[in-house]
């Protein structure tokens, strides 16, 4: 089993290679990352569960202002956790770009740079404690 940290390190290492040689074989796709990290609630087809988890297919927020999207994903909202500590900018960009182009969605990609610049602003969220 790979740890998250190992995977992140591996992802960072392959970035340079990706730039030169295109998509590396070991790099998970935006769809895979979405299924791993988001689909438990928003569901694989982005349809959500009414009354519990918002649909991302056709969702105004998900398809809207990149500043809002990056803020929500990094800091969390409602039942959604903050992803700033568990996913790096490149992975977040792949996930959101996938969300904004899947299931009939059509919105501009969001880049790793968008996430990087969004990270400088928001206040720190509380650390979750065991009970």
């Amino acid at each position: 089993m790979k740890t998250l940290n190992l995977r992140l390190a591996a992802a960072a290492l392959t970035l340079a290679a990706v730039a030169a040689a295109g998509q590396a074989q070991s790099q998970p796709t935006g769809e895979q990352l979405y299924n791993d990290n988001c689909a438990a609630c928003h569901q694989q087809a982005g349809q959500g569960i009414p009354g519990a988890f918002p649909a991302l297919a056709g969702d105004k927020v998900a398809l809207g202002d990149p500043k809002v999207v990056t803020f929500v994903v990094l800091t969390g909202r409602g039942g959604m956790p903050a992803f700033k500590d568990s996913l790096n900018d490149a992975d977040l960009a792949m996930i959101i770009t996938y969300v904004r182009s899947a299931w009939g969605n059509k919105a501009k990609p969001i880049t790793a740079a968008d996430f990087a610049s969004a990270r400088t602003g928001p206040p720190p969220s509380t650390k979750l404690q065991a009970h």
Partner: protein
Amino acid sequence: MDRYGLSRRTLLERLSLVGGVGLMMAGMEAFGYGIASASTAPPLLPGSAKGKKLIILGAGVAGLATAIEAMKAGYEVQIVEARSFAGGRAQTARKGFSLTELGGETQTCDFDEGGYINHGPWRIPYHHRSTLHYAKTLGVPLEIFVNDNDASYLFFESGKGPLKAKAVRKGQIAADARGHAAEMLAKVAKKGGLDDMVTAADRDQLVAYLITEGYLSPKDLAYTGTDGRGFEVDPGAGMVPGPGKPSTPFSMTDVLSSGAWRVLASVANYEQQRTMFQPSGGMDQIAKAMEKKVQPAIRYSTVVEKVAQNAAGVEVFVVDGAGKTSSIKGDYVVCTIPLSVLRSIDMQVSPRFKQAISAPAYAPVGKIGLQMKRRFWEEDDHIYGGHIYTDNPDILTVSFPSWGWMGNKGVLLGYYQFGANAAKISAKSPADRAAFAVAFGQKVMPQYAENYEKSFSVAWHRVQYNLGGWVDWNDETRKTEYPVLCEPDGRIYLAGEHVSYITGWQAGAIESAWQQLEKLHKRVQAA
């Protein structure tokens, strides 16, 4: 020296000498909010209920506590509960317990008779006297929950050195980290290196303390290990094993680079007391005992769709298990529905109140129970309760049962993760979650996989009527939104762990219920 000079000097000396304690005191003061306001018994509700009817939304621990005390005071009470059973998150999965997460498959617990996992609350700090109040007054048998065990393992994967990704007993890391640190500090102090911070008399006492703290040799202040970290060969009878063979401490470098020292602290965190309790047979026993007191007043399998109010009273619109809608009229509502769920319910409250309901985040939380064929942790590793801590954020804690000691089978807690990690693991099927948990355990204890039999897992953010483990107020929402929800909106009062500073604990649910009911009762008296 004048009086002020002396007191100033004394103060400075004390501050510098006991900086750690000073910091602790400051921390205690911050916590003091909770300590000072903690309720240990239900409120006295003198006077009359004046024939008023209370509609309580939710038969979790907060709703049950409200109902018990309100009925005692003479209120007419109607409790509306979405599930077919009471207790809210205070659930225990044992044979036959069934749970279907939103978007997930149905799991029906199939543990052997007597086996269980508390997939909701599972431990009660000794100072949660409100929770203990109901256990005691309702005659719920309690047993000790082992929340700290020096014999249990630490397993840190992201560090460096020979202890990286190695199961090491917590007591060994504690003895060595503190032993080596005490040695260094004691030697510096002895040489006069701290003389600008301590008086000569205090320096000797400091060194004496460090000798005790770190099991140092009084002769040369060296730490060379101590029996408390265990032996290589245990002492016993006769000549062999006779005195046994002492163990050799890990080097400071190895301990530091492993990262495992992160679990160490001078004293247990306020909520993570070493002495904790659990009800015998499962955490749901307290809620079940509370339920018994008020059962006739509970309408089960009844979901709240709308809460309306006007100057004359309240009306709650519900739909029952058969899909039939109806409404219940009363004088006041005490609503204990989690805010994560309440935000989608039609509530006739002010826009400001509505905004506050929608404000806070809820914690995604995952837990899994793993039934094991035999208690290898007890039989082979001599671990009786307590936790394996790891820096793997998808696992965080593996816990050994504090029940059924010396029995045959047992149920482990295989992981207890939060936030984004819980969201990630919850995307797996129940079988894959179990496989993931077992694969981790196998790295720590080689007997793990061969003894695994079956599992029961929960992802609280995917549980209908909860949508999260507990409220996750941040500094900002705590300041701006939380106070709004502590006061009623018209005839509607909120109660639950989310209306407390003891969030995520049953004590928070109970104490907020007590506080809100007392407030409501005073209003009824004044009317």
